[in-house]
């Protein structure tokens, strides 16, 4: 009897819904082949990868590849470059969309707000190649519009920002803000549109100014969203926008622009191709990221009520 009902349950829960599982078949095969197979393949970080022997046949070497990276003379520099550009990006880039959303939301001229929004979202759609190309053209000391303006104002040639290592972080972060400011504010605008108007009305009756209402009603309303985004950002603190860095990088600014992901690319795919070593460096990066995500998520869960899951 018991067996029979278990069978019936099974039939009801699984067999009768075979069509839904069939829908999932291709996506599951896809995610296994293109996400989980490479994850298993990451074991070559602990092996000495030999193309002829394949992933499973190459010899185990334990932590050798990791130790090689930790002992690499530029290890500290690469780690610092990665963290500093990422933190700079976070510190400068995280609060600005929040401030923008608060301003846009509280501005009385709705039509003008709409125009500003439309224009500020646009740079998001420009590709990294075009973005870097634009910076290079416009900041060219000889022919660029900013280079010429500099010359006109200071009477001397503008230094080439691409050959100055110290300028790399600023180019990276501020071009990112130029592209992302408007776009990243959308999510806060969405949160603000859910604010109860009655709160504003009663605060107004109590004599609160518009600015006070922004600080005490609007800002708290978007804090949960901001927290979630901060946690997500913490989980990618080691993932500098690799594609842009690669384009901005050259031999003159490499001392500051070499980050973990570009280093993985360099040792893995460019010079000779030490797959095992490059995989180890990449895996170190992924593990640190994932650990940070878990820690920050846990801390946020303990401190407040916000967490990713």
């Amino acid at each position, binding site marked *: 009897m018991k067996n029979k009902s278990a069978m019936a349950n099974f039939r009801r*829960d*699984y067999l009768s819904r075979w*069509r*839904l599982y069939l*829908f999932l078949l291709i*996506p*599951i095969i896809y*995610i296994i082949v293109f*996400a*989980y*197979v*490479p*994850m298993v*393949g990451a074991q*070559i970080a602990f092996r000495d990868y030999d193309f002829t022997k394949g*992933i499973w046949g190459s010899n185990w070497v334990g932590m050798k590849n990791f130790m090689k990276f930790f002992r690499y003379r530029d290890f500290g520099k690469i780690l610092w470059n990665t963290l500093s550009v990422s933190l700079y990006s976070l510190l400068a880039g995280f609060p600005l969309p929040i401030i*923008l959303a608060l*301003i846009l939301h*509280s*501005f009385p001229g709705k039509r003008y707000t709409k125009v*500003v929004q*439309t*224009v*500020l*979202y*646009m740079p998001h*759609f420009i*590709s990294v*190649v*075009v973005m*870097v*190309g634009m910076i*290079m*053209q*416009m900041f*060219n000391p*000889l*022919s660029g*519009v900013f280079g010429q303006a500099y010359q*006109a104002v200071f009477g001397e040639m503008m230094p*080439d920002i*691409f050959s100055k290592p110290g300028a790399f972080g600023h180019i990276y972060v501020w071009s990112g803000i*130029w592209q992302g400011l408007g776009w990243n504010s959308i*999510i806060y605008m*969405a*949160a603000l549109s859910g604010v109860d108007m009655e709160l504003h009305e009663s605060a*107004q009756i109590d004599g609160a*100014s518009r*600015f006070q209402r922004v600080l005490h009603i609007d800002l708290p309303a978007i804090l949960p*969203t901001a927290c979630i985004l901060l946690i997500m950002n913490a989980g990618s603190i080691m993932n500098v926008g690799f594609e842009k860095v690669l384009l901005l990088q*050259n031999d003159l600014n490499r001392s500051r622009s070499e980050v973990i992901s570009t280093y*993985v690319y360099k040792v893995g*795919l460019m010079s000779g191709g030490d*797959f095992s070593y*490059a995989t180890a460096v*990449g*895996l170190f*990066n*992924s593990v640190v*990221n994932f650990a940070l995500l878990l820690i920050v998520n846990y801390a946020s869960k303990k401190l407040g009520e916000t967490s990713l899951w």
Partner: protein
Amino acid sequence: MQAAKNRISNSRGDTVYYVVSGILMTVLLAAALYPMIFVLSASFSSGDAVSSGRVVLWPVELNFEGYKTVFRNNDILRAYGNTLLYTVVGTVINVIMALITAYPLSFKNLKGRGFFMLLFTFTMFFSGGMIPAYININNLHMRNTLWVMVIPGALSVYNMIITRTFIQSSIPYDMYEAASMDGCSETRYFFSFVLPLSKAIIAVNALFSAVGHWNAYFNAMIYLDERAKLPLQNIMRELLVMNEMNLSDLIDPEQAILMLNSVAVLKYALIVVATLPILCAYPFAQKYFVKGVMIGSIKG
């Protein structure tokens, strides 16, 4: 209420706040707009005007030399065609994949739903890294094929989640129950009810994917060896980014100026040609893009 609002918002503090806000918004508007207008204007100006700094906001010595050079260049035209192909095929695949994954997972009572969600979302936070993915693609013999441009990113988990959230929140489950009572299978329900009701989210998916494919360069750089297969972004990378370094390496500034003169306008024209399709579609698509981000912000 309206009267009270007016009376209070007329206070001096509020006026100052609005004026400061308005100024800030205008500064940001100008900062976002200026580089785009400048690039457009420079692309329609003469090489000499651009290089001598006479182009500030509007085109100077209006001419179309840059565009003529761009459209005469076979490399660029072929790359444009490649990009169109990769974008169209890639977008179709992305849209289908997001839908067929999101649809079954939108049934809250589907057994194993939590496990499948974990299987997909875990890949958002952890990956094997660049090199294992590279080895995998090579083992699958996908190098130098159309497929390497459209398959590795076929399922965007983020897009799948917003699609699932959309289906759950905007298509009532009661409708499914009523339909299945009348003998409608899940497959038929998908084609007859979910698809027609999901036009908005399909547009969101298509637009996000199309922009992604149009703007991508890295996969083409590492997986395509034949120049004839490269998309536009990669050709632009050669012309805009790599060429630039060679020019500034030149020791003789006179020579550099001469070369920059003719090349600069071409570069601006190329930027416009490569970016215009997206920016032209943007005003019509804006509400969908925004909608996508907004749905994404609802925790599903």
